[in-house]
């Protein structure tokens, strides 16, 4: 989803700061009487994190990096076991063919505003999220009514069957939060209070300062009353630091000033391998890079020609391990993925033939197209360069523009169709472990456009999208088949293509344990789980 996250650099600042270093030499103070040391986890990004406001209901961009520390969901997904585990809910059950869901809430959870979390508070949060209808609020679309028979029980009545426990673990719009500010603000006043840089979550960390537009963008400090407790060693602070340059970030890691780098130019990541002070982690993800072709500006033969003209293997080679070949648009490891789908492959002759039929191609009229990608992402830049060169061989002049994400997105959503691009590069990752978000966000008819930046509109695809969610809750095999049909349709109608599936390439200082990569929560580090 919501992209611009090509590469986030998570930089974790090392634990023991200068305090220990500047302690007088020769001091023999035993450890137990030393001042408690601030263990700071600095998360380094290329661009500011809180760009979509501070509202947990409508956040749909990179803010989840910070919000995942401050807010929690009812359940949490574990990709290693492919199961949904307890978080703010300790147990749950479904009845009535998946149309009634009962959640039992954890006791002793306190909001950062001071109030205790009760079923009523949780209900208010979910209803507010539904009402605001931003972000991934569609995950609650099936909810008809919510009952709170007692302080710690939530009962959902759905209008159609839906895998609610799974959806409640989503990385967007599934947070449980207090709907009142500490001074009792509600409604718009509460939203304004949130957007001024405050949080009303239940998570282990709470916001300390927000320096909008500055390098050290967000400071989070530990929330003493966190239900998970603070026994053992934990990081006490989390800092989000904006460092636009890959090379600077790499050097900061090497010098020990950062602990964790999330995504970095592959050649730099490989250069960490020999360093004993750094641990590198590579993991497949559910994130892929999509090229969305403007169906209003480009005819079907032209779109297909473009897709035949791209050297997919070359792209993978140039990425040096940061990406793997895609099959269809659903990434591997998720149901709905099929590795045997008919797909486009690099075939210059076919591309030339298709262009020729349309009056373009080598020796004929030159075709001028535009492509936009997100600035600051070296992988996207390499991909754009290769596509440009591939198309140039076919007498197609591709003008490539690198734009900051908000600018790129605004241009794609422009009300003036003449200003929109022909090819839009962006990453996508799911809202919850299900292929639905690709289709509902990218391929459903949208007017005005939001994330469907191929401007694709197909009634039969719309109806398939409407069918698949309830089907997932009742007959998963049928749902998988429907996803297969949808992907075949996409191949035939060529509104978009997945260029590659991203491998998360993390690097961090050795000595930190407890880190687990989870594609369900892309690039999120649950800092409380780490041991410095």
């Amino acid at each position, binding site marked *: 989803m919501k992209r611009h996250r090509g590469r986030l650099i998570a930089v974790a600042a090392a634990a023991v700061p*200068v305090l220990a270093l500047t302690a007088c030499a020769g001091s023999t103070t035993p450890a137990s009487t030393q001042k408690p040391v601030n263990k700071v986890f600095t998360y380094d990004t290329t661009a500011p994190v809180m760009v979509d406001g501070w509202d947990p209901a409508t956040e749909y961009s990179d803010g989840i990096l910070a919000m995942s520390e401050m807010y929690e969901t009812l359940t949490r997904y574990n990709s290693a076991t492919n199961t949904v585990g307890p978080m703010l809910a300790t147990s749950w059950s479904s009845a009535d063919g998946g149309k009634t869901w009962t959640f039992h809430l954890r006791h002793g959870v306190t909001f950062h505003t001071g109030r205790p979390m009760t079923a009523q508070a949780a209900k208010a949060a979910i209803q507010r999220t539904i009402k605001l209808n931003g972000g991934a609020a569609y995950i609650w679309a099936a909810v008809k009514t919510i009952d709170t028979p007692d302080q710690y029980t939530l009962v959902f009545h759905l209008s159609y069957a839906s895998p609610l426990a799974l959806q409640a673990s989503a990385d967007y719009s599934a947070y449980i939060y207090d709907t009142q500010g500490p001074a009792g603000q509600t409604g718009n006043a509460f939203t304004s209070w949130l957007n001024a840089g405050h949080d009303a979550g239940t998570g282990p960390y709470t916001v300390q300062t927000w320096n909008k*537009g500055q390098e050290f963008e967000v400071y989070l400090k530990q929330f003493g009353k966190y239900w998970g407790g603070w026994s053992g060693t934990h990081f006490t602070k989390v800092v989000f630091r904006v460092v636009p340059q890959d090379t600077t970030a790499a*050097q900061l890691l090497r010098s020990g000033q950062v602990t964790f780098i999330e995504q970095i130019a592959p050649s730099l990541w490989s250069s960490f391998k020999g360093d004993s002070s750094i641990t590198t982690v590579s993991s497949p993800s559910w994130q892929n890079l999509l090229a969305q072709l403007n169906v209003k500006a480009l005819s079907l033969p032209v779109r297909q020609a473009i897709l035949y003209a791209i050297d997919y293997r070359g792209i993978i080679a140039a990425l040096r391990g940061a990406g793997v070949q895609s099959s269809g648009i659903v990434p591997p490891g998720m149901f709905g993925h099929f590795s045997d789908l008919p797909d486009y492959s690099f075939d210059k002759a076919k591309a030339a033939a298709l262009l020729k039929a349309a009056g373009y191609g080598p020796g004929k009229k030159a075709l001028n197209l535009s492509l936009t990608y997100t600035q600051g992402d070296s992988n996207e830049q390499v991909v754009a360069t290769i596509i440009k060169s591939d198309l140039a061989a076919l007498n197609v002049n591709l003008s490539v523009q690198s734009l900051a994400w*908000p600018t790129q997105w*605004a241009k794609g959503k422009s009300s003036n169709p003449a*200003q929109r691009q022909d090819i839009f590069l962006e990453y996508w990752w799911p809202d919850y472990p299900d292929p639905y978000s690709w289709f509902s966000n990218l391929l459903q008819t949208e007017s005005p456009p939001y994330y469907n930046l191929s401007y694709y509109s197909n009634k039969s695809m719309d109806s398939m999208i409407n069918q698949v969610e309830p089907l997932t809750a009742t007959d998963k095999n049928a749902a998988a088949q429907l996803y297969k049909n949808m992907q075949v349709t996409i191949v035939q109608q060529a509104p978009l293509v997945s260029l590659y599936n991203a491998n998360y390439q993390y690097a961090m200082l050795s000595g930190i344990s407890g880190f687990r990569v989870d594609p369900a929560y892309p690039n999120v580090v649950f800092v409380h789980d780490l041991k410095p």
Partner: protein
Amino acid sequence: MIRYVIRRVTLAFVVVAGVVILTFVISDVVPGDPAASWAGPHASAAQIARARQYLGLDQPLAVRIGKYFAGIVTGNWGTSIHTHRPVLSDIGTAAPATLELVIAALVIAILAGVPLGLAAARWPGRGLDHAIRVGSVLGVSMPVFWLALIFQLVFAQRLRLLPVAGQYDPNLVFSHPLTVRTQLPVLDSLISGNWAMLGSTLTHLILPALVVAAYPAGVIARMVRAQVLDTLGEAHVQMVRSLGFPERTVFGTFAMRLAWNPVAAILALVFAYSLVNTFLVESIFDWPGLGSYAAASVSTLDTPAIVGVTLFVAAAYVVANLVVDLVQAALDPRIRLR
């Protein structure tokens, strides 16, 4: 004298006004939709229209220019599209860091350039002179962004002598918090006796300052050399020589005093050039100054911010020029009478 001052100040105002009009006219040609950029990712068409109204983009150019002028005087330089804060406050936050960098660079440039220029003039035509001349041309011809990358690679990464980026070590913020008074970390840590922080700020300042100092050092060395040589060839100096005084004394008496004149004359110029050079260097060193702000504004097509920064730098240049002119006029009556 008064009349001279009035004349120069008026001229300065006219120039700055012309600068504003020019940048406005330029920025009006912008393709793309700043209103959409402002309204943000969730905006509907209605919200974008409202944003257009709020930003005043629906009014004719002349009106906008008029309003902007009125705004400048009252301190409203528009609102930045990418930070959503007043441009003037953004500049106010970012400017001190750049100022710190430029001042440090100029200090280094003077400390290096003047002695080198003098040395070149003392023994002209010899190897040292040629070396210094080549060196100063090298400084002037250096692509500053390239030098920044090379320095960062060599000194910070390979040799690990100096820190990579930033203004100071972020960990120190917790253990040795800095009391902000002048917004210049070096000065603040000096004033408050925060030695750990002072050390950190100084070591972080060295590389960027050296990089930015290359150009002014070259210019200063060249100018000092030229000025001293010129003067040494003049009649009255020849006379002193003919009286039998050794070259050493001649040089000491005349050259040393004269060296500062050209430095003062071009100080405003190299100040402005260095200020603009920081645009290229700051993003490489993660220096939170005007340069980073300008680079971010360029990449988000944030025209109010770009206009604001341009105006600020131009105004700074004009003011610096004015100050230097006035000081020189105060010292040299011939200038006033022209």
